[in-house]
């Protein structure tokens, strides 16, 4: 193996700046998309548990369509196809007037895609709650909104914290696909360092370490959330 090591390159400007701005973009992109994914995913997940067949079917179709098409294809659809299909004024606004169109396209692609996965988890969380809980709530005079607000959603979310953690970590990793439409996130910046310096080994090591740090931070934070929200009396609540 012939290779000239030069770890110092990572701490020299402008390459250090490249990596830092890459981390920032990855974090902002993933967190913004997560807000969208969590909100929409919760709505879709609740829709799937409603007795109304039509409402439930709409959410089911959404999940099926988004899950059946690779995320990278979604990026291309949102970036190249959707602006052309919209009315002209909207399309022009998307392409010209919207500041940073690549970033917002990536947020939409990533958020709407992850929403279908969150929806499945929320549905599973709600459906795992014993029927008696709903019946008891209804018998004590709650209407449907109250049943969801006070009984089903709090219990459902608390059950699915571990699986939501893994979806949350996936969104940071999946945000790397945004480089295909020109968003300069962490992986893209590592590549840029490589193409400027030919020190690919160092650049990719830096990116790998930074991703692992992000993943570990998420794991630590979510473990705290998990411990504080675990439901007493369930098998998952061991050690208490």
């Amino acid at each position, binding site marked *: 193996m012939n290779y000239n090591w030069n770890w110092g390159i990572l701490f020299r400007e402008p390459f250090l700046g490249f990596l830092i701005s890459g981390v920032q973009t990855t974090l902002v992109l993933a967190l913004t998309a997560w807000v969208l994914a969590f909100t929409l995913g919760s709505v879709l997940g609740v829709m799937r548990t409603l007795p109304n067949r039509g409402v439930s079917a709409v959410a089911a179709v959404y999940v099926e369509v988004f899950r059946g098409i690779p995320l990278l294809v979604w990026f291309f659809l949102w970036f*190249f196809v959707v602006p052309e299909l919209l009315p002209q004024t909207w399309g022009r606004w998307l392409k010209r007037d919207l500041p940073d169109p690549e970033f917002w396209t990536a947020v939409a692609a990533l958020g709407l895609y992850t929403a279908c996965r969150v929806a499945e988890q929320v549905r599973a969380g709600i459906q795992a709650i014993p029927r008696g809980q709903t019946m008891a709530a209804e018998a004590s005079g709650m209407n449907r909104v109250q049943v969801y607000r006070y009984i089903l959603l709090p219990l459902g979310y608390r059950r699915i914290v571990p699986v939501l953690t893994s979806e949350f970590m996936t969104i940071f990793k999946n945000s790397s696909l945004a480089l295909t439409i020109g968003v300069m996130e962490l992986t893209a910046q590592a590549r840029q360092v490589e193409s400027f310096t030919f020190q690919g080994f160092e650049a990719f090591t830096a990116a790998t370490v930074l991703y692992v740090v992000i993943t570990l931070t998420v794991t630590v934070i979510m473990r705290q959330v998990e411990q504080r929200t675990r439901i007493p009396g369930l098998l998952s609540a061991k050690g208490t």
Partner: protein
Amino acid sequence: MIEFDWDALVRALPFLAQGMVLTLELTGLAMVGGIALGTVLAILRLSMPAPVPQIIAGYVNGLRAMPLILVIFWFYLLVPLFLGRPVGAFSSALIAFTMFEAAYYSEIIRAGIQGVPRGQLQAALASGMSYPQAMRYIVLPQAFRAMVPILLTQSIILFQDTSLVYVVGLRDFLTAANIVASRDQRPIEMYLFVAAVYLVLCASASFGVRILQRKSAR
């Protein structure tokens, strides 16, 4: 209103078909390699003394913490460096997918093996089988039967993930469509077609898995 030009799509079909062949080849080979390597990793992790399980756990968790695109770039850089000669994008992508998917498959397989009742292994060992024989004839067949649906679901994800070879310019289905889209200025028809094909294939595959799951649950 825009006008669709579906003739451009029809003309591009042979080229897109070549891309689909590459996508399927990559999926099939990476699936076989990933399950084989994943099985080995899972067995070693369950049966070897320290530090082997720790090393394997590090490998699995490390790869699972990384975005697949970064893994593809890593192997695109590393494979030629290690072999000392340039290899094609296909080989490096195939190695990347095999190593990456092995991490995910091995977790599924480990859970599957751990789901086999302990008494099965003990009975096999007590009847004079060696550990490899007990694994081969008693534990793994039972484990795999229970795992088939999950392994297939993971393989559907792999099928979708192969579209990421776009970043190293390998001509899979999506990249072929991308080339035609920019050559003929027909992005709308191309990407809608690609999305439709993926949707039909993945939806019918996961429908099949669901039927299989219902059958094996009985």
